[in-house]
């Protein structure tokens, strides 16, 4: 019951806001969606408390038919296992906080109600995704969040950059979605069901099944797992499909917090965790996941070190942190992935909202080089953002420490070459992470003000409606680690997750977490501290250092600054050839090759017989008559032929 309220309240809020907007004014519209979200968050917390603490048994809510063709019968339902409930709690709470924050942030926007309709609908889609009981409902939510993110990135639709970013996000996501959809189809082909429980129950029998592809008989589970993972790569912005995430910062900042940090991008991780019973039976796919995750974790961290846009730095950090979650899935520590996902949701939403508060204070300035010395004018933002920064840098006792530590320990404990790579890349990434986030904090809040004097003079702390959520999230960033650790990854983790996460494979890794050697366990933390030290040295003690370093290695600096040239490469490989091909097909393929013959005929007849004149002057009765005669002739021909 409560879960139904949690899922449907955002939808109700959005509908109220949208339908009554013409009659009831903007305060009503905004109020409706904010109140609906607060109700949803309350219901989310209650339902989590009932099931996860009081242990009321799981059951499905709201079963309803959707598609029903032959054996393809996805239905609507709200699933209530630990995995779904954890997500429902996180999504509703973070979303409610962001709704409240947005009341302050968007107050000066002309089309504010539209904004609230979008974010409420977005929240609804995300909740449908996490409570899905089958792959197709999951896909419904999946595409729903995709659509809403498109609309929200392009929210300021008179800006060219926002439009371009929105389209890019949708298209890149759709590339992943194609693989996901084919994966769903193949899952159905193998299991004749898209329902999670049916699929998972049949996985053991499917281990030896093969699927013919690329001229070889591949294990079908591997093929499915890879297809689904490519879908997840699109949504979770992993290497090769990551290019949309940084551009998505064109949307209003609360959106960056909601979609591109806390919820939507975690959908990919959530989906792979949901599918662990299947993916765990696909060892090659697990290695692919580990390697892609590790590569992304490291790659995005390097980019984060040199960016100058405050939101882009945090965006690349999101990309990188999602990589860590995939490492956890890949090495068989799905509970650690979920742990990091929840922690990350809080501290990353905090960082983005904090950044929003800074941007708000500085009249939309986003370049960190033009900030500095803001700690005294924005004291609450300053303190809360340090909470988020330290959580991201994985410094104890902040939340990120517990989960990132667990992920890297799991990578260490899982003795394969892929996980070794993940451990090395992840540890280096941890150092870089600490460096770039501390760099950001120092550039923004410390040192001397570097912006235009009048902007800096007008800088002011945000209103209570904005700093309130920051404080709540800061408490989350501080406490969620040690509060949740015993449940999520502690001794009794298996009992906590129940059947919602596959048991056998990761049990081994999860139990080995505490057994790894001290140097392996402590190295990531030491690297993180080193990263902080270097950042302090570069940006506090000798500010000339970064410039010197960049001048010493100009090639490397430009390579990283330009994000490893992915955008340029994709532009050259895909975008421009596609447009050229489009033009070629239209002008040459259609107009000249295929049309050559019939067009020639048409031209001849047009010119020779002056059809134009006669067609204009006739009356419809004459044509009707001609038609009748034609039919008569036709029938006669038939009768004669017989």
């Amino acid at each position, binding site marked *: 019951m409560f879960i139904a309220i949690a899922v449907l309240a955002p939808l109700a809020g959005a509908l109220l806001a949208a339908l009554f907007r013409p009659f009831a004014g903007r305060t009503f519209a905004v109020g409706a969606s904010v109140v609906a979200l607060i109700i949803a968050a309350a219901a989310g917390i209650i339902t989590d408390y009932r099931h996860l603490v009081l242990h009321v048994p799981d059951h499905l809510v709201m079963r309803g038919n959707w598609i029903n063709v032959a054996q393809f019968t996805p239905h609507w339902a709200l699933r209530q296992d630990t995995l779904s409930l954890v997500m429902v709690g996180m999504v509703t709470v973070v979303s409610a906080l962001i709704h409240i924050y947005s009341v302050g942030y968007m107050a000066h926007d002309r089309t504010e109600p539209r904004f609230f309709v979008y974010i409420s609908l977005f929240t609804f889609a995300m909740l449908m995704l996490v409570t899905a009981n089958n792959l197709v409902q999951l896909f419904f939510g999946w595409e729903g969040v995709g659509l809403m993110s498109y609309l929200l990135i392009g929210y300021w639709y008179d800006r060219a950059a926002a439009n371009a970013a929105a389209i890019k996000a949708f298209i890149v996501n759709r590339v992943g979605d194609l693989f996901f959809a084919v994966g769903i189809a193949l899952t159905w082909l193998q299991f004749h069901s898209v329902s999670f429980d049916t699929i998972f129950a049949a996985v053991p029998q499917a281990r030896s099944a093969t699927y013919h592809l690329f001229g070889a008989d591949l294990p079908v589970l591997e093929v499915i797992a890879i297809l689904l993972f490519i879908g997840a790569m699109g949504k979770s912005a992993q290497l090769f499909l990551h290019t949309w995430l940084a551009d998505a910062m064109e949307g209003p900042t609360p959106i960056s917090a909601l979609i591109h940090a806390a919820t939507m991008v975690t959908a990919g991780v959530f989906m792979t965790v949901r599918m662990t019973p299947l993916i765990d039976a696909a060892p090659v796919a697990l290695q692919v996941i580990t390697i892609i995750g590790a590569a992304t974790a490291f790659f995005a961290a390097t980019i984060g070190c040199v960016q100058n846009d405050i939101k882009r730095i945090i965006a690349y950090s999101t990309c990188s942190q999602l990589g860590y979650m995939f490492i956890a899935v890949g090495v068989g520590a799905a509970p650690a992935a979920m742990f990091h996902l929840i922690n990350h949701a809080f501290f990353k939403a905090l960082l983005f909202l904090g950044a929003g508060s800074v941007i708000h204070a500085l009249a939309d300035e986003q370049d960190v080089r033009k900030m500095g010395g803001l700690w005294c004018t924005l004291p609450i933002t300053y303190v809360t953002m340090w909470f988020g920064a330290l959580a991201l840098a994985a410094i104890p006792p902040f939340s990120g420490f517990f989960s990132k530590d667990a992920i890297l320990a799991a990578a260490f404990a899982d003795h394969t070459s892929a996980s070794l790579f993940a451990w090395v890349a992840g540890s280096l990434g941890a150092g870089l992470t600490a460096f770039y986030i501390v760099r950001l904090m120092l550039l923004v809040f410390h040192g001397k003000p570097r912006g235009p004097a009048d902007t800096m003079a007008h800088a002011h702390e945000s209103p209570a409606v904005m700093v309130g959520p920051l404080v709540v999230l800061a408490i989350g960033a501080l406490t969620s680690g040690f509060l949740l650790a015993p449940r999520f990854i502690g001794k009794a983790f298996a009992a906590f997750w129940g059947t919602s996460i596959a048991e056998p494979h990761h049990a081994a890794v999860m139990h080995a977490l505490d057994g790894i050697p001290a140097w392996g366990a402590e190295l990531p933390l030491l690297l993180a501290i080193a990263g902080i030290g270097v950042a302090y040295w570069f940006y506090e003690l000798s500010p000339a250092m970064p410039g010197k370093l960049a001048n010493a290695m100009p090639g490397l600096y430009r390579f990283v600054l330009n994000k490893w040239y992915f955008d340029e490469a994709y532009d050259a490989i895909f975008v421009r050839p596609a447009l050229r091909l489009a033009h070629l*097909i239209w002008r040459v393929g259609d107009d000249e090759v295929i049309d050559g013959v019939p067009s020639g005929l048409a031209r001849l007849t047009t010119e020779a017989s002056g059809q134009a004149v006669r067609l204009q002057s006739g009356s419809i009765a004459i044509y009707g008559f001609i038609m009748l005669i034609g039919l008569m002739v036709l029938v006669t021909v038939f009768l004669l032929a017989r």
Partner: protein
Amino acid sequence: MSFPILSLMIWLPLVGAALMFIPQGSDAAGARNARWIALWTSLIVLVLAAITLVDFNPGIHGFQFTETAAWIPQFHIAYRLGLDGISLFFVVLSALLTPIAILASWREMRRVRDYMAAFLLLETMTIGMFASLDFLMFYIFFEAVLIPMYLIIGVWGGERRIHAAIKFFIFTLAGSLPMLLALVWMWHHAGTTDMLTLMHTPIAPHIQDWLFIAFLASFGVKAAVWPLHTWLPDAYGEAPLPGTIMLAAVLSKMGAYGFLRFSLPMLPQASAYFAPLMFALGIMGVIYISFAALAQTDMKRMIAYSSVAHMGLIIVGIFTFTVIGIEGALFQMVSHGLVIAALFLCVGILLARGHSLRLDQLGGLATRMPVFAAFLMFFVMANVGLPGTSGFVGEILVMIGAIQINFWVAFLTGTGMILSVMYMLVMVRRVLFDHARSIANAVIGDLSAKEWLMLAPLAIMVLGLGFIPSGLTTAFHTAVTDLVHAHVAAMSPPSHFAMARP
């Protein structure tokens, strides 16, 4: 015999068209009366269609509402009508879109009487074609559609209308001659033109191949199967908007319907033999046409290309010979009919405000026409197959059907998911977002009540089918299952054809 509801639906528009030609004083009065006669006639047909929809019993095998009357008995040609789950929705779709098209052409000023009569004639032909159970009748209706459509394009079309009309005429006529030969052969072979008998008359495989090619030429042109599609962008682009709606929403389905009604059940071996070719053509359609759409600079033509790209998906679904694939194709046909009609209506709304349709001149309409923008965005999302809209159901079902053939058919058909987003979002951006790029587009008003009346029902149906697709799928489930079973049965005993020739 029960009440001849199908005959009434077919011939009523013809009567309506005839009524318009009774002399009525001034031209203005004639025009006004013609409009109202057309609207009321088509609305009555719509009510009749709704009655068939309600009365239709999805559990019954075979045809319902059947009517038979002797016509040319010595040659076993009869007046035979009936509906099954496959044809039902196309009759309903024709009946639904005709009044919408007539409403959309309310402002047409040139030769109103002829114009309205042409649309009613078109309705007679399309409903007659979908309801025919006699091959000769089917053929006559199928060909006769050409005439009102040719006139609609040629007389009331855009600047290059003559070129477009003649191209349309040549393509479809050239396509239908092979079907005429096929008709004559099959009539000779089976001794009747009763389609039900033809479906159960075995034909030798090598003959089937020739017949299949003949049907492909005819249905392929109508369905705009690649590379027979090039008449379409011209015809869609130059036809007056209501004509485009009928072309895209109803006439394009005639070809796909033909494959389902003739090729599959009557030529099972040839259909199976040629299936790989059909997949190739369908996939080629999806990919090639999508790229062509991307290059378009005119909103109407871009939507026209998008419409063809979706036909590729339908062709693939039909030739999977699976219940899921065929139901997906059918669902997609209905959904596409609604969505593409709505998209063209949106084009008409811009035209009515004196807008250019050139994508480099539009822009910024989201600010000045927010309701229009919301509708356009919704239908664009339905067109790209977003879950929750009817477009998704057809797409996922076709993919599930296609994966049963092989991975690449499913994957390459699915590329439409990416490609459609590419050109549709570019269109949305150019039309709704950015700034207005031309002063001419600054004069603006949001939707009128009449425009609401046309778009809102379509939106509700698209959304309804997206969430409750079983309303549609249960209705055609029996017919599709029978079709697939018959196909499987025909394919299984190879000795079946020894006695094929009389």
